[in-house]
């Protein structure tokens, strides 16, 4: 196929766009590094994991408890939201009558757009007192996981739904011809065929879970400690930045950017792991 002028222009335009898209993450990392340098030069990275506690006013910068908070909240919510979301999509595509299915889909699309503050507000006013009655204080890792699950569920549900819709109808007809039940078809035929879409949804929802700030800020208690039970209040790295950035100067401010870098580190590690584990297309 001879490359026409049109095609060449197109390809270079597209490459330009891709470069822009790819460069943003790089810019952000550079920005974080620049802002974090002052305290890193003065205090060094090691102290961010070994100091006595997180108390920047007294020059103590241990991030580990908050790191645990972030990781636990993320893991908990992804573990719960993924099956719920995927099965919701299965419901939408294969079990529900068409009218209910489109209503359900609208509902989930709506939920993808509710602001994190509204989720946080609801969590603070409804969920936290509920949990508090079980075990004070109510603001806890559990509340965080619950709210995060609700927030990331639309992402995985909608992505899964879209990828199920793309499974070639021949596959389904073939399965029906073989006499497979609905569930067997879903489990044995649809899931493998939709692998790559499901994986996309997983990545997107994990990203959201790590990056969520406002809602977590309102329901997790924000106490800097490694949570030892589901009912312990804890603080995530993101909530920490949001809470203290407004009032931080000098080394404190730089230290907050270091925690931002640590977050980026986690994400890069997860992306690398995903690269290794990724199902081949």
């Amino acid at each position, binding site marked *: 196929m001879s490359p026409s002028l049109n095609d060449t222009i197109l*390809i270079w335009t597209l490459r330009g766009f891709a470069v822009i898209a790819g460069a943003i993450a790089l810019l952000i990392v550079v920005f974080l590094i620049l*802002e974090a340098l002052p305290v890193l030069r003065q205090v060094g990275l090691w102290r961010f994991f070994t100091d006595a506690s997180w108390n920047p006013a007294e020059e103590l910068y241990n991030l580990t408890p908050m790191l645990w908070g972030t990781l636990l909240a993320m893991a908990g919510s992804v573990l719960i939201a993924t099956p719920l979301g995927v099965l919701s999509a299965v419901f939408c595509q294969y079990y529900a009558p068409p009218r209910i299915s489109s209503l359900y889909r*609208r509902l989930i699309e709506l939920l993808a757009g509710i*602001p994190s503050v509204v989720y946080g507000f609801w969590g603070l006013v409804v969920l936290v007192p509920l949990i508090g009655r079980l075990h004070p204080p109510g603001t806890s890792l559990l509340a965080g996981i619950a709210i995060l699950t609700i927030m990331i569920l639309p992402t995985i549900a909608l992505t899964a739904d*879209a990828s199920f819709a793309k499974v070639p109808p021949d596959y389904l007809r073939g399965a029906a011809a073989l006499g497979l*039940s609905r*569930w067997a078809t879903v489990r044995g035929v649809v899931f493998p065929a939709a692998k790559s879409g499901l994986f996309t949804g997983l990545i997107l929802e994990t990203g959201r879970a790590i*990056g969520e700030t406002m809602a977590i800020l309102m329901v997790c208690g924000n106490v800097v400690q490694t949570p030892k039970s589901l009912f312990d209040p804890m603080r995530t790295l993101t909530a920490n930045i949001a809470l203290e950035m407004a009032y931080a100067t000098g080394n404190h401010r730089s230290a907050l950017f270091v925690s931002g870098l640590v977050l980026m580190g986690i994400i890069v590690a997860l992306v690398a792991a995903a690269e290794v584990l990724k199902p081949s297309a």
Partner: protein
Amino acid sequence: MSESSFSTASNRQFSTWLVWAIALFVTTIFLWILSDIIWHGARQLNWEFLTTAPRSAGRKGGIAPIIVSTALILGVCMAVSVPVGVGTAVLLAEFTDTENQFGRLVRRSLDVLAGVPSIVFGLFGNAFFCKTLGLGFSILSGGLTLACMVLPILIRSTEEGFRAVPSHYRLSAAALGISRTTTLWQLLLPAAVPGLVVGLVLGVGRAIAETAALIFTSGYVDRMPESLLDSGRALSIHIFDLSMNVSGGDANAYASALVLLVLLLLINGTAAWMAEHWLHRRITPS
């Protein structure tokens, strides 16, 4: 074949029961939240609320300037992210092999971008768009920052959309001697629209729900914006201020949340309708 474990009657009943139960559970939780918003917010909702400016720090009056600011921010976000996003997705899906270095770099970079916390986007947007590019607190800064946030979602979903287009479309087009550009515009893009629409819906949902990123970029000013370089308060920030910072602002916070949801319904509905009738051309599969 272990068919028996797949298709016993009780197994079938259990799986059906499980799926319906989950759908019901999810629906209940969401209806709980939605009904809370509707219950508390519907009382304040009237024409005056939608067309006047806020008074007394938002406790009284309406949210007209805020709706306009939000619409403008969303507009900027979509105007920037859709071309860049779809373009990148097309490149990744159609013009690069899976082993291509450039393509892999861009993909990894986008995965990382998908995980960046909203507050880091806010700080970055503030430093890059507001200060380095000199846009200051403005709707433009806010929209551009949101575009950065939304790109990974848009690109990923659109790419999936392209992957789902059967390969014989491309082969047939090549056999007919159609240029790649034409193939793209006339055949592939229309066929990949479902993926694009999902990406758009998720992206708009994310953008409209964003708070932390906008506080530092499009700002706090609740006046009616007169240009894209004016600072404008977005709905999500207004809701945040009313519920967390201003005493007695709860009622209007709920009402604003309700308006936001209606706006979202409209946008999603329009996107889906456009996909159905205008852009998606179903070519008979062979």
